């Protein structure tokens, strides 16, 4: 593939307008709404940016010896018409190295919830008052206490007026048994739903050998009233040095081997499937009711779908790499037309494009080297722009010179990924770049002319930039 930076003018100027699609109601003029778009992995209950994203927020881990050494939300200008295109325009430090990890928007995208896996703090950022300058709105620092011992808040996925949080661990032994937790948009605790285990299946059907009670990601299929979850490992492993863990047979026994479907409305687990080797991220099709997951240790692609005869089930549908080489599939992204997956493998710093137009037969199409290591991938709704970041976990990232920390933005021309810009997170003294979310002023301002009106706290209509 080509890795040379392309001049910015390669970007099509004509596509800078923003369009919003949503499965939630928006007045006309705001826009349309085709399907719920894959603007990477936004909740089906949220508006989507279907045009040009203006900003990318990067939830960044502080690193000892780098800059101010603490976790921060970094905002990068991604508007090709802006003078600061491709540059860091804002950085908001939150204090401590908390193992910053994933983040997710509230259903109206006005707030970004950013979680931490070590200290269990959740930082809620106001990203609507001025998307170019997020503000820290609230810190939840009693997560373990109010949830009854849940540790490691991981995925934040919007429900109407609420956030569903999947977690990774527990307060009792820092192992993998964990729960789903629901909060209000205002940051108030609602309920804890412990994952079913052999000791207590909580009404779920165990279809295979395992009911490990582990957790990782969460997605919704509203049309089927289904919630899908996957499984990873507890604090003891995700905080452990990666090489140390791989050499520790006891630790390697403690990975999740399950995915589950839940009754979304009732919040009750329905079926537990065996998916060996830590099924991590879940990405659901936008036009159909099935989801993919990839296994970190066994390097497989699995499909979770509703079979006419078996009902909800899971099936292996592809191979990502040779597990003896530890490719370690991590984040992946599904294209908006459900035809392709971009799957990152951390250890070889490569992204792989799989054709999943037949979801039961994932076919490798091409491979593209991104860096010495790569974790997250986010793609624009039109699939023409892809963003990659480098950090997996503070103690799993590579050591020494291989520990590159970056955000790289590429254009996809159908055959090649063409590097447009790169931000070196170490040179910029920021830290480890992890989860990316897109943002745009136009999500929050529909006033075409420069009129301003205040509707009260929290519902301000921002001034137009036009």
């Amino acid at each position: 593939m080509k890795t040379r930076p392309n001049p910015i003018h390669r970007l099509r100027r004509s596509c800078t307008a923003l369009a919003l699609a949503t499965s939630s109601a928006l007045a006309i003029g705001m826009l349309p709404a085709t399907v719920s778009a894959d603007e990477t992995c936004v909740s089906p209950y949220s508006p989507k940016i279907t045009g040009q994203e203006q900003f990318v927020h990067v939830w960044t881990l502080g690193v000892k010896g780098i800059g101010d050494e603490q976790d921060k939300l970094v905002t990068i200008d991604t508007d090709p018409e802006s003078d600061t295109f491709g540059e860091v325009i804002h950085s908001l430090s939150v204090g401590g190295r908390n193992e910053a990890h994933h983040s997710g928007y509230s259903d109206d995208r006005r707030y970004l919830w950013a979680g931490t896996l070590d200290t269990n703090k959740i930082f809620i950022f106001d990203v609507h008052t001025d998307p170019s300058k997020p503000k820290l709105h609230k810190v939840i620092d009693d997560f373990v206490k109010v949830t009854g011992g849940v540790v490691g808040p991981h995925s934040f996925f919007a429900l109407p007026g609420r956030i569903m949080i999947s977690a990774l661990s527990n307060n009792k032994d820092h192992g993998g048994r964990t729960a789903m937790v629901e909060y209000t948009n205002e940051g108030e605790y609602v309920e804890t739903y412990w994952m079913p285990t052999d000791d207590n299946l909580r009404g779920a059907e165990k279809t295979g050998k395992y009911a490990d009670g582990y957790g990782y990601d969460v997605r919704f299929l509203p049309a089927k009233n289904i919630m899908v979850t996957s499984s990873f490992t507890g604090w003891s492993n995700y905080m452990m040095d990666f090489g140390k863990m791989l050499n520790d047979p006891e630790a390697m026994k403690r990975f999740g081997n399950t995915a589950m479907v839940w009754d979304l409305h009732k919040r009750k687990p329905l079926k537990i499937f065996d998916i060996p080797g830590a099924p991590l991220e879940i990405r659901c099709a936008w036009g159909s009711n099935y989801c993919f997951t990839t296994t970190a240790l066994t390097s497989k692609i699995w499909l979770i779908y509703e079979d006419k005869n078996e009902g909800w089930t899971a099936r292996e549908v592809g191979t990502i790499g040779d597990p003896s080489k530890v490719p370690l599939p991590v984040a992946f992204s599904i294209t908006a037309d459900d035809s392709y997956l971009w799957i990152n493998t951390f250890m070889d710093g490569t992204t792989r494009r799989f054709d999943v137009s037949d979801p039961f037969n994932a076919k490798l199409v091409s491979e593209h080297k991104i860096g010495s290591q790569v974790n997250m991938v986010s793609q624009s709704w039109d699939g023409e722009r892809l963003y990659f970041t480098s950090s997996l976990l503070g103690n799993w990232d590579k050591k020494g010179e291989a520990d590159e920390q970056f955000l790289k933005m590429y254009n996809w021309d159908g055959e090649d990924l063409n590097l447009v810009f790169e931000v070196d997170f170490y040179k910029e003294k920021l830290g480890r770049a992890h989860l990316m979310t897109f943002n745009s002023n136009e999500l929050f301002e529909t006033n075409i002319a420069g009129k301003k009106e205040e509707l009260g706290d929290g519902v301000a209509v921002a001034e137009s930039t036009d």
Partner: protein
Amino acid sequence: MYPSIARFPKALVFVFGCALGAMPAAGAEEAAKVPAKTKEPVKGAIDRPQVLAPGYTALSFDPPDAGTYSLPPIAPAPDGRVLKTDGSEASLHDAFGDKYVVLSFIYSTCDDVNGCPLATYVLYRLYQTMQKNPELAENMRLLSLSFDPQNDTPEVMRLYAENFAGKGADWLFLTTESNDVLAPILADYGQGVNRVYNEEGESTGQISHVLRVFLIDPERRIRNIYSVSFLHPDLVLADVRTLMQEAAAGGYQAAAAKSKPPLRTRELMAQASHTPLGLPPLEAPEGQEITAARVDLGRKLFFDRRLSGNETLSCAMCHIPEQGFTNNTMSRAVGMEGQSLRRNTASLYNLAWQDPLYVDGRERHLHTLTWSELLDLKRMGNRSVGVVLDKLRGLPDYEDLFEDAFDGQSADMVTTGVAMATYLRTLVSGTSPFDRWRFGGEEGAMSPAAARGYELFTGRAGCASCHEVSEDHALFTDNQLHNTGIGWHHSMGKEPRRQVMELGGGIRIEMDMDALAGTEERSYNDLGLYEATQDPVDRWKFRTPGLRNVAETAPYMHDGSLPTLEAVVEFYDQGGFEHPEQDERIRPLGLSDADKADLVAFLKALTGDNLRLLEADAEAAPVGVPAGEGS
């Protein structure tokens, strides 16, 4: 061939102008693709047929049976000042009455069919159902509140309401005096709205908003929030009926917080003063008498995560009571911010008789060991004594605890250390099958295999030369440090190029270790006692561990490198890792398979009879975790 997947488009949104209440024709509609500014097609937008939101059609799944689930209260439903259609003012709460309320924010000129019209359509369907069902009609109320007071005057809302006129059910249409009155209501309900202006800066009358409809119970608590994707009359009715059943059954019962079992302080003290069979008497150092107040305080410290630098770790997060006060899930421990520690977490049973402390023997007293742990930046991660003491003196739940335990003395280095040491000393464990057999005269208490194992242990296998057994008690340690070869092998042995690894689900694979290059910070090294004395003869010497409850404390050896008791016996049978500095008592033993099995049977007979007591006491311990802002 593969099983087919039922294709089902997700909730989609039409965009076309429709008078409120007018229902679009069913069927697909080409997606509108007009970006906000340019009115040009959205590049890359996927052409898919659109359908109406589920609320207009039959549910694509079976609605839940009422009462088979619960809806935890989400938040108190906020209040505000509203205007009725006759222009009179009321509070929103008054409008709720004592009913189950379905509250929808709308505006009369909204023409997104899957926006306000959807909400109104669903409410209309509910209205029709209520009219036919006296119980629902009596208990439910529908509220449509405008978020466009400038256009939606009470008169406009009255005319609007006439579209849905009927009898026998409650449906109120409300508005507000002004945007200023409305704003706090919208903010409180989290209903962000953006008004849409034209290029001249004039309001187009259009408002963009994320659709939310609220279900509120008679106690004015929000119990569900619906959006386009699942606002459906069948779901709302199932929820209302669920809430009505809940009320009939006495109201919402939060999952009963597991009531904590009682602390077992008295039993801990009793077993410390009259030690279990097989243990010598326990003598606390002078000035460190075991009292209930000190045990309770020490236990509280042991389980308190707030005592670590980032308030994440406690002693109990590595020394896990249910896992033999060690951690069965890893060979070497993980500390502050995941830093790698070099050794297996030590079990804490019978620490009272352990001297020196730590596997390299570098510490002598439990109360000073406490501070070694608290101040170790890789372990509890506190920067100074002052940081810890300030925290202890400032935490309200520690008020008077030190003073009560130490004759008025507050938290300081000594009282903190002694409290912790006192609790640790009570973790005694004996009266195992072996003790009953050896010291209690119960011949049948231990199996014949274990008895044969004991003969080997004290005889031909030579284990007891370090793991000592006395006439009237057994601690199974000489409290000395020896070189067994484990440490030497790690420091001096060659690393394997390939290694079998478990990948989950029982899948094992031979790994190419080159693939892991660069993943570990730095290969660790551990020279044991030498690190404390700097004397070369002390290289790779580690303290003999006691063996009580050894079946509970896998993995084994100072580095957790042996996963099972069988592996440990095998290691000694092979004579360790032969090298000049290895203790001369480590030699090939020539044990048969039966001998090895007998030795393992013996080791498994060393499990004390009080482990469940110690776990129950730990279960009852208050776990100190950050309690949030302002607490």
